[in-house]
């Protein structure tokens, strides 16, 4: 692999709300390499959600460039973006976002349906992914028959099943109690150890502090980019200072 997996250069995203331009993201640049575990941290309104939407190819920037695994995201059509999300990105949401009427297995199979894999292949890959997150005996349960932690594991299996370049997790522990949240963070650690590239969007400095690298956002700009513990601490001092 030549060059970084993700390369962002002076990325901006402006919204026009009630005739006023809001600079949600105002010139952000960084690279993320293959196999990194990065936290994007900031308070609400810092621009981290906007950045996550851009990184996840759900939204396109007002200006600047975003290269993901060699593809120039800004130039792609809607269909091409859908295919890119399908291939390159595994989403993990705060509220799990599982389909309520489908079994765990069917939920995990979904990205492969959109990739056009035959049924048998989908089934096999989905079973493997569920086994990886420790849900081998919950495959045929529906989300309402699973605990919060189990639901998030299903969501992680769904994110992993298509073997994407990055796992993009938005407040993955936000809706979990601290013990279950801890299990999920440990699972991320295991995935990182296996070589997955993880991007974790959170407002919790304690979570960011446990990541090898953290990017701290404030008012749409990068406040700090470095080892997780340092960047988290940076936030703490500023919070005390103001």
């Amino acid at each position, binding site marked *: 692999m030549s060059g970084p997996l993700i390369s962002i250069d002076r990325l901006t995203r402006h919204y026009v709300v009630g005739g006023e331009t809001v600079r949600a993201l105002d010139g952000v640049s960084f690279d993320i390499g293959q196999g990194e575990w990065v936290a994007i941290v900031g308070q609400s309104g810092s621009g981290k959600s906007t950045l996550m*939407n851009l990184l*996840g190819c*759900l*939204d396109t920037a007002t200006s600047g460039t975003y290269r993901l695994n060699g593809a120039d995201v800004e130039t792609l059509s*809607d*269909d091409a973006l*859908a*295919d890119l*999300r*399908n*291939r390159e990105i595994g*989403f993990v*949401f705060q509220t799990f*976002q599982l*389909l309520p*009427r*489908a079994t765990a297995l069917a939920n995990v199979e*979904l*990205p492969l*349906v*959109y*990739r*056009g*894999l*035959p*049924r048998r292949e*989908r089934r096999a890959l989905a079973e493997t992914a569920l086994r990886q997150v420790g849900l081998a005996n919950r495959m045929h349960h529906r989300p309402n028959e699973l605990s919060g932690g189990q639901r998030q594991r299903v969501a992680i299996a*769904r994110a992993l099943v*298509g073997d994407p370049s990055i796992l993009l997790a938005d407040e993955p522990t936000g809706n979990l109690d601290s013990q279950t949240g801890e299990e999920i963070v440990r699972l991320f650690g295991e995935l990182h150890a296996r070589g997955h590239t993880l991007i974790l969007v959170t407002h919790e400095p304690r979570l960011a502090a446990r990541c090898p690298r953290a990017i701290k956002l404030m008012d749409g700009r990068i406040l700090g980019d470095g080892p997780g513990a340092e960047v988290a601490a940076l936030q703490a001092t500023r919070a005390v200072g103001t």
Partner: protein
Amino acid sequence: MTEAARPDRPRRARRGVIRLASETGEGLRIALSALVSNTLRSLLTTLGIVIGVMTVIAIVAIIDGLNQSFATQMGGLGAHTLYVSKWKWIMSGNDWWEQRNRKDMGRAEFEAVSREATLATAVAPFVSLDATLTSGQAELTRVRVRGTNQDYEVANGVTVAAGRFLSPPDVELSRSVMVLGPNLSDKLFPGLPAAEVVGRRLRVMGRPFTVIGVQTRRGRLMGLDLDSEATLPWTTFLRDMGAKRTISLAVTSEPGQGQALEDQLIGILRRVRRVPPGKPDDFSVNRQEQLQRLYHQLTGALYGVAIGVGLITLLVGGIGIMNIMLVSVTERTREIGVRRALGARRRTILLQFLVESSLVSMLGGAVGTALGFLVAWLLALTTPLAAAVTPGAVGLGLGFSAAVGLLFGSWPAWRAANLDPVEALRYE
């Protein structure tokens, strides 16, 4: 570049096909689970479609049934027969007043036509009234009694199941003999087979008659029971039941000679009836095809009404479908967002909702088709109307409802497909 891409192409095409197939399958699965989890709502939604399709199918089944029996009966009556009568079959405006004052037709006209109409292959006079028939076992009131001659068998396509039809001596000698329709035979002589009814005696208006034959069963024609007629020599009829009645003539020709025969008949009748040159005919030459034309006008109008009613109901049903699909799209906004995030293209979401709306609509169409045939069948049982199930009608019902589902589902589906994934994921 192209060389490198070439071997990849069949694989990509195959993957596209699998993807489309699995997306459609996924769409079907989602649609079915949505239907099952909202059973009541789905039922209410499709009610409009059910009623619309039911109406159309019922009317179409009845028209098809009528067509079939009409065609059979018309075929049985012989298309080459001309019916000469004081009355015109299809009247309009003041025709009735004019025709009421026409001179009655009688023996003179029949004799002139049988003597002079060289193109005629059969000439059957006929005259009828409603009378009471009594046998030893039963009394039947208001039976259609017809006086005619041996040619009526040919001209009107009557056949006998037992015994014989009228013969020339029966007519010449004014014999008191009678041919019964199968229904009359069954009612007057219950339990007796046709062969044993022949030779039995019965009374018409107090006068004794001998049964010489029983007709084969013919069925019904537009509510008219063709199997409940009693036929006797017209000479006997005129002698016993009143000589002053007007008669009609059924005249047949060789195929293709109909027009020539009509001209010949008009010439003969004008002379016999002394119509001055330049005056209009004071009689009418009727044909089966005039009835057919009238029939087709009537059923055509009925078809029009059926289609109109059906279209309006389907429109209402379609709006119901659109409404519920819009609700469904709103309810599943987040689900749409998730699907888009996982790699569903706009087209995929569009397909999913189109599959759902046409499935709902087609289910309604299927139920409506079944109910429509049920209604038609019940009508056929309880009224003189006939009903027939044709594949065309089934196709019409299902096809129409699927089309309605697609048409009215397309706007909600388009809305679903064009949701912004970011907004959709954030939707509460």
